[in-house]
């Protein structure tokens, strides 16, 4: 009997250490009561970080937990799940994807189970479908992560304008935004703590990346600027408590792109020239400027040349 007990003990230690190896407990910080955030790193997704670069986390209610973005690969999703189980005994009931980008959705598979509803912008499912094949092909090559179509889980609940979800004694207010960072941005507001989870509508330190609409993004920022929030959680960079001051660098960068590109189009200049000259005054203010700026100019130019 004693030897059987010892055997079981050895087995259980072996199993738990194995699962720890496979998926550790992700480090999270409680930024407001019941709101936990793992802050990502200002890096390009690559085969070293395996795409785990974005801010992700969860909000705990009296009945259950809402996950907000699941990470850059299935293992990071499992580590986030471990962090939730470390923090609370309440089950996960919602997974909210703030938009289609891989660093925010590739951990989805870790949370797929009967009691969990996936929630996203009404255009998220389409964006996942049209980008899925491309993303999966790239994951092996660029992230060193093996993915299959089953890992990209479209939302069960599509948000068109706004939606309240109830975690028990805690209502989260979800807003589907017009095209801005992408064409499927969703933000999450927690009235109880006056916290706004803006995800990639707000970049800090990491250069903002335009994959939706420059003009649309500026319009969303203008509307958000008129509100006061106690805590704001960006998709990249540190959690901030000085809104709207904290969004000024992003706004200034986007406005500068808009002003300079409009001027070039008016002067009859071409995209090739704009990519070489627009916006380089902002170079030292941002991380990953060299990696994303020229792409931003390209995307913005292609949008603004259709203005008139």
């Amino acid at each position, binding site marked *: 009997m004693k030897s059987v007990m010892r055997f079981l003990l050895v087995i259980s230690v072996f199993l738990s250490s194995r699962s720890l190896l496979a998926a550790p407990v992700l480090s999270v910080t409680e930024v407001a009561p019941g709101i936990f955030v793992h802050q990502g790193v200002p890096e390009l997704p690559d085969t070293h970080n395996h795409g785990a670069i974005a801010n992700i986390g969860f909000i705990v209610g009296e009945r259950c937990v809402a996950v907000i973005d699941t990470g850059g690969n299935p293992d990071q999703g499992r580590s986030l799940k471990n962090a939730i189980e470390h923090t609370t005994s309440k089950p996960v009931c919602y997974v909210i994807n703030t938009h289609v980008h891989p660093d925010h959705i590739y951990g989805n598979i870790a949370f797929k189970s009967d009691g969990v509803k996936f929630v996203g912008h009404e*255009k998220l*499912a*389409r*964006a*996942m*479908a*049209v*980008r*899925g*094949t*491309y993303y999966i*092909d*790239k994951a*092996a*090559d660029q992230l060193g992560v*093996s993915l299959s*179509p089953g890992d990209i889980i479209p939302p069960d609940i599509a948000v068109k304008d706004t939606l309240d979800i109830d975690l028990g004694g805690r209502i989260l207010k979800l807003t589907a935004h017009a*095209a801005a960072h*992408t*064409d499927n941005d969703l933000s999450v507001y927690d009235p109880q703590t006056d916290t706004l989870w803006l995800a990639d509508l707000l970049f800090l330190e990491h250069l903002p990346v*335009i*994959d*939706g*609409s420059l003009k*649309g993004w500026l319009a969303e920022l203008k509307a958000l600027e008129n509100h006061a929030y106690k805590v704001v959680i960006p998709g990249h960079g540190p959690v901030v408590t000085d809104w709207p001051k904290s969004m000024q660098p992003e706004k200034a960068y986007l406005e500068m792109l808009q002003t300079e590109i409009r001027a070039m189009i008016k002067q*009859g200049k*071409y*995209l*090739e020239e704009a*990519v070489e000259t627009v916006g380089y005054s902002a170079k030292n203010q941002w991380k990953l400027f060299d990696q994303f700026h*020229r*792409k931003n100019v*390209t*995307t913005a130019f*292609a*949008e603004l*040349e*259709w203005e008139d």
Partner: protein
Amino acid sequence: MKLHKMLPWVFLLGLVPVLALANDDESEWNSRLKDQYFAGKTITESNDLIEIDAPYRAEDPALVPIKIVAKVPQSKDRYIKKILVLVDKNPFPFVGEFEFTPESGKADLAMRVRVNTYSHVRAIAEMNDGELYMSKKFVKASGGCSAPIGADLDAAMQRLGKMKFRLDEGVKAGEPALAQLLISHPNITGMQMDQVTRFVKKSHFVKEIRVSFNNKPILTAKTDIAISADPNFRFYFVPDQAGELKAEVTDTSCESPTSRDACSQGNSYSETYVVNP
């Protein structure tokens, strides 16, 4: 084992980067493309007649600006009749075939293309006497044909068919003037779509462009899915007098991204611009 059956294993084994590195070659051109388009003909490879320029490393594989500069003027006796543009390693290498006339003034051409993997982009010019000249440039890009369609697809679909001309100021009578033609069209390759979901779409692209000045052809082009979303062309024409620049564009939709056997009739769009030199 057939190649298409082996592909999943190639991906699993992580051999893709190795294959990509091996792409700096002429294999597609030598084994297939040259015979497909120029069987039995002699092509002079040189930058003396036309020269193609493209960024060595593309910022956005779905929007790679390329430019072809003609080193000879378009005269009545000697002119560039046609330029074929190919991206060797694209799933459908044909980018477009562009026909010029003496009225074009200069056979320069700029456009934005999709490049799917490390590949040569080549332009082959055919003179009015049948001589062939080729210029090429190697471009490092990947995923241009399957890359997500325009950032804001709904906005793109809403303005589909809208067109505009842009001309530099100070157009002079009898001298070549540079014109830019912007066509709003998502130019969907059909490769972006997830075939197992309800979001299946066909390829949907601009297949023909006719630009004329006072009804005389300036540029006539057959184009395909390798042209970027919102096709954008720059070319010359000679405004000998005041008149009307006109573009007529026709699109099509095909069942497969890489076969042109089953395609629909498509729609036509046109735009005019008054020129007063």
